[in-house]
């Protein structure tokens, strides 16, 4: 019932692996981790969502904060491997434009270069 976050650096970007769920009980941790990366100077983020199977509005709020910080830093973000349920939540909350989705890691990393 939690989120596991991994980082893998390649081609000037960080591939952030998200496995599990982001909800009201752990969205703060999720946000802190991603904001920490941005503040450490990582401004090209590709989120691997293949194991990311649930996000609530708390997670969406955290994603908005992350997107804003990245934009202020002149950075980019891309998602890949997003399942339909998570994509539906991002659609309902009007975030599909802010979080472009790609078919695989290579395409996402290329998109944020």
């Amino acid at each position: 019932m939690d989120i596991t976050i991994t980082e893998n650096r390649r081609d000037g970007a960080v591939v952030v692996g998200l496995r599990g769920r982001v909800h009201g009980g752990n969205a703060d941790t999720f946000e802190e981790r991603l904001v920490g990366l941005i503040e450490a100077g990582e401004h090209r983020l590709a989120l691997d969502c293949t194991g990311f199977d649930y996000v609530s509005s708390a997670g969406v709020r955290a994603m908005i904060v992350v997107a804003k910080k990245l934009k202020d830093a002149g950075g980019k973000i891309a998602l890949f491997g997003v399942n339909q349920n998570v994509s539906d939540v991002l659609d309902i909350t009007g975030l599909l434009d802010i979080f472009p989705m790609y078919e695989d890691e290579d395409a996402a990393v290329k998109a944020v270069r």
Partner: protein
Amino acid sequence: MQIALKNDLKEMGRLLDDVEGWGKGHGLSEKLIFDLHLVLDEIFTNIVHYGYEDGAEHQVLISMELEPGEVRVRVEDDAREFNPLERPDPDLGVPLEERKVGGLGIYLVRQLMDEVQYTREGGKNVLSLRRSTGPS
């Protein structure tokens, strides 16, 4: 199904596991179970975050029933009076810089359920929700 939760987000895991077990046991679609998860997550999170100021332990009662063609959910809490349906919808069309981070939880609930009603009964907030089990 009826579950009583303490007003503590640590209870979220138990809530979502029970919803999943109940949903699978009744043969609900994976999509519907996901949506019910999300709706109850949002409502329970709001109650825990905003409902109480006394630092004491309270109970939140959640019940779910499967009727012909629909799921009915009821959430009852003894928090201060609060009708989440009175909050305006967030503005989703503004540029990122102007996006506010609030108001999304109840907005999602209203988008995902077919009917949401609030009443105040005997000192309790009661949210009654319905969702068709047919194709959406």
